[in-house]
């Protein structure tokens, strides 16, 4: 099989595709992942705050039923497999983007699939903040809102960066999968050439690029998290 994969003409063909299609595909994957993560954080972070502070003994207690409803919705969304969720939200995607096919359209299901996950990650970051600090802020007359803005969020920045690195690499994986229902980028190349047209070498290269992107995000995320943490001076 590998003789076949690495024959001179296959390599020449793969190189050709590499030069003509990979730059755009890589950019698309990068862009989709980044934008989807951004939206997921914009939606997920406030929900994470609610999850971490809204319980009965929290800083900003919500009515018990409301807190439970939010919890259940987040759990429900998280338990739907991504591939199925993508199909389920097609009508919604059409409504927002006008089409359900293509790079931009794939951002919508990615955001919907990942914001509950991001919300949980943020919740866990906020819960890591030493409770004594919250109580100290209370003892100085902080309002609940001030505690969130001035204590909870700033104190959890390093942990948030680490967790958002996990999120972005997961969303990168999802974005590759979204090629199955018309998303663009490296995932599309891998599926089109590797799965439909048996150009295994092209698929390998696409996968290697995906791995490299994950490494890149992880390395940058680790560096930023470490740099942000003033406990490590």
């Amino acid at each position, binding site marked *: 099989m590998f003789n076949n994969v690495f024959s001179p003409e296959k390599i020449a063909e793969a190189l050709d595709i590499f030069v003509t299609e990979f730059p755009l595909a890589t950019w698309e994957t990068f862009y989709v992942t980044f934008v989807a993560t951004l939206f997921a954080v914009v939606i997920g972070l406030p929900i994470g705050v609610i999850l971490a502070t809204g319980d009965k003994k929290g800083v900003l207690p919500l009515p018990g039923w409301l807190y439970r409803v939010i919890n259940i919705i987040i759990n429900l969304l998280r338990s739907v497999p991504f591939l199925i969720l993508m199909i389920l939200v097609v009508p919604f995607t059409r409504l927002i983007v006008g089409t359900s096919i293509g790079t931009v359209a794939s951002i919508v299901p990615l955001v919907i699939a990942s914001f509950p996950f991001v919300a949980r990650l943020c919740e866990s970051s906020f819960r890591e903040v*030493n409770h*004594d*600090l919250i*109580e*100290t*802020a*209370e*003892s*100085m*007359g*902080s*309002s609940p809102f*001030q505690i969130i803005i*001035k*204590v909870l969020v*700033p*104190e959890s*920045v*390093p942990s948030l960066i680490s967790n958002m690195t996990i999120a972005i690499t997961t969303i990168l994986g999802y974005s590759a999968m979204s090629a199955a229902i018309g998303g663009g980028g490296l995932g599309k190349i891998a599926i089109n050439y590797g799965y439909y047209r048996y150009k295994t070498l092209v698929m390998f290269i696409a996968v290697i690029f995906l791995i490299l992107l994950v490494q890149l995000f992880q390395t940058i995320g680790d560096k930023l998290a470490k740099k*942000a*943490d*003033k*406990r*490590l*001076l």
Partner: protein
Amino acid sequence: MIEIRNLSKTFDSVEALKNVSITIEDGDIFGIIGMSGAGKSTLVRTINMLEKPTDGTVLIDGVDLSLLSKKELREVRRNVTMIFQHFNLLQQRTCLKNVCFPLELIGVKKDEAEKKAMELLTLVGLPDKADSYPSQLSGGQQQRVAIARALATNPKVLLCDEATSALDPKTTAQILELIRKINKELNITVVVITHQMSVVEDVCNKVAILDQGEVKEQGLVTDIFSSPKSAAAKRLVFPDGASSIERGENEHRIRLIFNGSDTTNTPMIAKLAMECGIAANIIAANTKVIEGDTYGYMVLGITGTHETLGRAVDFIKSTGKIEVMEVPDDVQ
């Protein structure tokens, strides 16, 4: 003035405080001492209503805190600030920004807040640490920053919950010195929660002894230390069972308190024997020498007349910064 009246607090089934009444006058450095689990933290937290009492009231300058709205309570908390055992500084903020924190909460302008914070860091002796982060500071320095932060809103009362319990004796003495200075120079009433007798001896003028949620004894430190009446007080004053050693006939007992006394170069007991001809028996001792200074206490038995005792006390006092108290006969 802080009036704690018939205060009780029950958690589920645990009675943390039982009918506690304490009056703390302006200008006091009031110690609340008790063993771990006695209810000290719970008590101090009711003074700024971080903990709502199950029963009873706390009045500060005649204002009943239990009647205040959340917003009004936040204002009270600017007047009654707090420091903690583990300092509780925000780890991701510089020291200067930590001191600015309470000022930010009330909307003081940035440059004004920073100016005030710098003054306070200077007051606590750390002007050069303004741009450092808490993780770069020693425990004692962190507590100084926490004190500066607690002073930012010009409070009338400072609550200290085991503020020196995580510090070594030398650093403890320095922090207590700072607390004394704040009390004197800024006219701030201080409530000191501790399980260490030495802290009360060093810095407090009054003390309440808390045991299993109840105040067993309260009054002037000098009174309670020289003649503890309740069992709880005796246990604290003589923690190592010093009183269990039978007292001989004509034996007087004195308690020496070392708070950074420079005594290492004086063989005090030997000199007492040689120079004054007085034999002293060490009944109990718990002292530590740190960087040449002695901390802790010692109980000596001295047999003889009152005159002998007087000479012994004078001699001991002349050897350094040592406090001496007589242990009354009725204390066993």
